[in-house]
């Protein structure tokens, strides 16, 4: 069973229409395997992406492109208890979180 998500790249287009990622410090909550993260992270100064699923985070870390190793970090964290100091980020993405 192979599923393809957003072949039309509508999500990426809208994400960039709604936010300027250039040199921003970005927090993504609910990153899963990093599908969305790879659509913007190259433009950021730094990206911290969190999820509750350790298996998904493992995949995201393995898939992380070499040129993003010093710019994109993944961590296991609850959105209600974020392990960051106040006023750390310029921009946050609440991704597919119900």
């Amino acid at each position, binding site marked *: *069973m192979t599923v*393809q998500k957003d072949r039309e790249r509508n999500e990426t287009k809208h994400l960039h229409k709604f*936010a300027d990622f250039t040199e921003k410090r970005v927090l993504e*909550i609910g990153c899963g395997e990093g599908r969305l993260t790879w659509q913007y992270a190259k433009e950021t100064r730094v990206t911290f992406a969190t999820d509750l699923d350790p298996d998904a985070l493992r995949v995201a870390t393995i898939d992380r492109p070499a040129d993003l190793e010093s710019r994109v970090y993944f961590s296991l964290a609850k*959105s209600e208890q974020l392990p960051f100091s106040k006023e750390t980020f310029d921009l*946050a993405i609440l991704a597919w979180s119900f």
Partner: protein
Amino acid sequence: MVHALDEIRRVLVPNGILIDLRPTLDHWPIEVASAREIRETGRMLDFPLGLADDEAANQSIADAEHKGWFIREQEEFFPFFYSWDSPSELEEWIATEWHEFTGLDDRTKQATRSIWASADADARVRVKVKMLITRWRVAAQNLKAVSQS
């Protein structure tokens, strides 16, 4: 989710931006799409648990706005397509991944299989998910309260 929004507000700088990106149930259309044509074969069923999740998310956002934590700046719906090579793959995905909040009735399954079988060789089956994207800005009136906490 209200607690999550409070946490997000805490870690964002003054005038920081929150992008909320999520699917919303709305009897998502099923389509058979090829390079030549797109045909709708039916609609997904919205289950109570999925609708309750949507309502809870909407309520949390409304609460955060009411508390003055965030200011809504921009909002839009857009389609997000999940695509499969065949109707059986679509049905398997729904049964394993989406069964708690959405489903397909037999009539739509049959219509999808029938239309796909007679479609062009490049035809795929897809679900048109309704996505909501909203840009929020941390409200200035709360910055003082946050800095004192």
